[in-house]
């Protein structure tokens, strides 16, 4: 066991899988000598050589496109895209190829590729460095979308993702890259993709969140508790496939639902969760489901960033309204 930050846990997973399987290779922009902009690959090139861990030309479409070809030739690429906003040049490769090769070839050509990139707001970054468009990726048939909220989960989920024979987008909440520390086992362990986790049991309202929002929710729950509101908190862990069963079961118990995410509201993850709960547990609901999300605006530059991402007080405020409705 060692105490790790989320970014250290990511590095630990990469390190162990590089050691474990020679088909695993790690590449992206500045991941070699530089160790990645957030240092998630620091030291790995030194340990495994430039053949296993290497820097590519600055061109995101080629990073994902070459990974597709490598997967066809039997490798298991784990690629890093420096920032969420830099995913956009690679979108064609994601949607037109990575997501569809298995389907297009009736299972003959699987895509064991992991695309890692930071996600979300809160680090006073430049334009296009704060996007969180997980719903967009969740909407693409053939992609799995994972987002951890703790160092322990980050390591276990990333190891599972690397071992998957399907493409996994691994979104790392950059706001908590270093904000949380936790005991993490030294060796290989796996957390299943597609399973949510009930972080805290409660009886009055089900609160669903993921990634950096989990911490925000946990702080809000402490305040709500003083008002006698008992919250059941579910960490989604995986955006797609979505663990509907765990959410529905919880709502059947609590009778109320609130979903929190920092990405834009329209056509978002909360909309999907609420639709499923309406389909499967409508008659258990005591009040209309609520959602607290980012706005359908471009994330503002740092001076106005605080207007975009919300503090725990905002979650508390909305929770109270959900409970009182």
């Amino acid at each position, binding site marked *: 066991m060692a105490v790790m930050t989320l970014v250290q846990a990511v590095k630990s997973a990469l390190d162990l899988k590089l050691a474990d399987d020679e088909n695993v*290779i790690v590449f992206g922009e500045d991941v070699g*000598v530089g160790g990645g902009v957030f240092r998630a690959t620091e030291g790995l*090139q*030194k340990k495994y*050589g*430039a*053949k296993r861990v*290497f820097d*590519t*030309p600055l*061109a995101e*479409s*080629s990073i*994902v*496109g*070459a*990974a*597709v*070809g*490598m*997967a*066809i*030739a*039997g*490798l298991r*690429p784990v690629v890093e895209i420096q920032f969420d906003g830099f995913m956009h*040049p690679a979108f*064609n*490769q994601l949607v*037109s*190829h990575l997501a569809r090769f*298995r*389907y*297009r*070839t*009736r*299972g*003959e*050509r*699987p895509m064991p590729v992991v695309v890692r990139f930071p996600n979300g707001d809160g680090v006073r970054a430049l334009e296009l460095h704060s996007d969180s468009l997980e719903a967009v990726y969740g909407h693409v*048939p*053939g992609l*799995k979308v994972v987002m951890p909220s703790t160092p322990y989960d980050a390591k276990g989920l990333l190891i599972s993702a690397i071992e*998957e*024979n*399907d493409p996994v987008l691994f979104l790392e909440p950059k706001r908590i890259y270093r904000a949380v520390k936790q005991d993490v086992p030294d060796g290989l362990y796996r957390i299943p993709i*597609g399973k949510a986790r009930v972080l805290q049991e409660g009886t009055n309202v089900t609160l669903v969140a993921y990634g950096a929002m989990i911490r925000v929710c946990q702080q809000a729950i402490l305040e709500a508790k003083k008002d006698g509101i008992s919250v059941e908190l579910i960490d989604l862990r995986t955006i*797609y*496939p*979505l663990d*509907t*069963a765990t959410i529905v079961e919880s709502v059947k118990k609590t009778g109320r639902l609130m979903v929190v995410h920092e990405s834009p509201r329209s056509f978002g993850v909360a909309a999907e969760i609420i639709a499923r709960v309406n389909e499967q547990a409508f008659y258990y609901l005591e009040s209309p489901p609520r959602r607290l999300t980012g706005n359908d605006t471009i994330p503002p530059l740092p001076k106005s960033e605080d207007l975009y991402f919300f503090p725990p007080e905002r979650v508390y405020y909305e929770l109270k309204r959900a409970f009182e409705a």
Partner: protein
Amino acid sequence: MTAEQKTATRRSAKPSTGSLFEAFDPLRGRRLEILDENGKVVGGEWMPELSDEKLLHAYKMMLLARVADLKAVSLQRQGRLYTLPPSLGQEACAVGSAITLEKEDWMVPAYRELGAWLVRGVPLSRVYLYFAGSEYGNVYPPGVRVLPTSVPISSQLLHAVGIGHAINYRNRKEVVITYFGDGGTSEGDFHEALNWAAVFHCPVIFFCNNNQYAISHPRARQTISETIAQKAIAYGMPGIQVDGNDFLAVYRATQEAASHARAGRGPVLIEGVTYRMGAHTTSDDPSKYRESEEEELWKARDPLIRMRKYLEAKGLWDETREEDAKTEAQAKADEDFAEAEKWKANSVDEIFAHVFESTVPELEAQAESLKSFRKWKEGR
């Protein structure tokens, strides 16, 4: 510099190019031509070594591609195949390039490579099946290292690069050939692919079927570069322009590119100057954007006529053999289409299968919903 970095850059010394690539340096404005329009040898010094048997095999493959293509267009007109891209006129590029490669080499096509598919062992019945609307048309026999049809423009070039990278990773001697059109050279992925392949010395042959049109957009408006081959220079790799209607020129250039790549010297860009004699796809009307005079000019440059005249002059071919070979090709096309037409539509389970390795609850629920509707409908 660390030891690792040295290892990574050891192969990046400037590759020495073969004499062919020096002689046809794109910046010198020369084009490799071996057979002229009448099948006369004009570039004898570059003549590849080819047995009579292989020459005849190549011609028969070109003929099969021609016959199979004409049949496909006719079937499409009858509504028995969906939209398809005819390959009429590009048989020398397709067959001349693909036939130089070894079984363990890889081919990453776009969508107009009928001759190359056939040469590389893709069953004609599967090609027909794909254009008859089934994903199973992308499933090839074991050991056929051909990727499925790629519809987006030039994005497949990066898959070839990734395969080439993996070949280097495993220290193998295989090469990858990837095909695209003149329009494809405008896409960002073309530039990213050439750049990556050159930086990492990936054994990739970039084969441009410069067929003069990207749907209706003429080559002259696609790029202001004098040639497509010269683009290779900017990326640090050899480039060569060849007469794409001359089987022998295409063969020679691709063979040279393959040995260059196999020797660890990295990628090569080949520009085959050819002409798409038919439409872009069966949904398109080329009379809107090109003159019949131009089409007549290229009819006279037909790659099959040129090759046939060459074989006749060598005493390897005659009218009787031509008729026999055509009959044989027609019979094969008929038989393979009959096989493709027998294929049924996917079942409900099949359209949900293969999204992921194993199913997920969302997909199970959606499949159940569709089945339930279909059962209800049957009972009506």
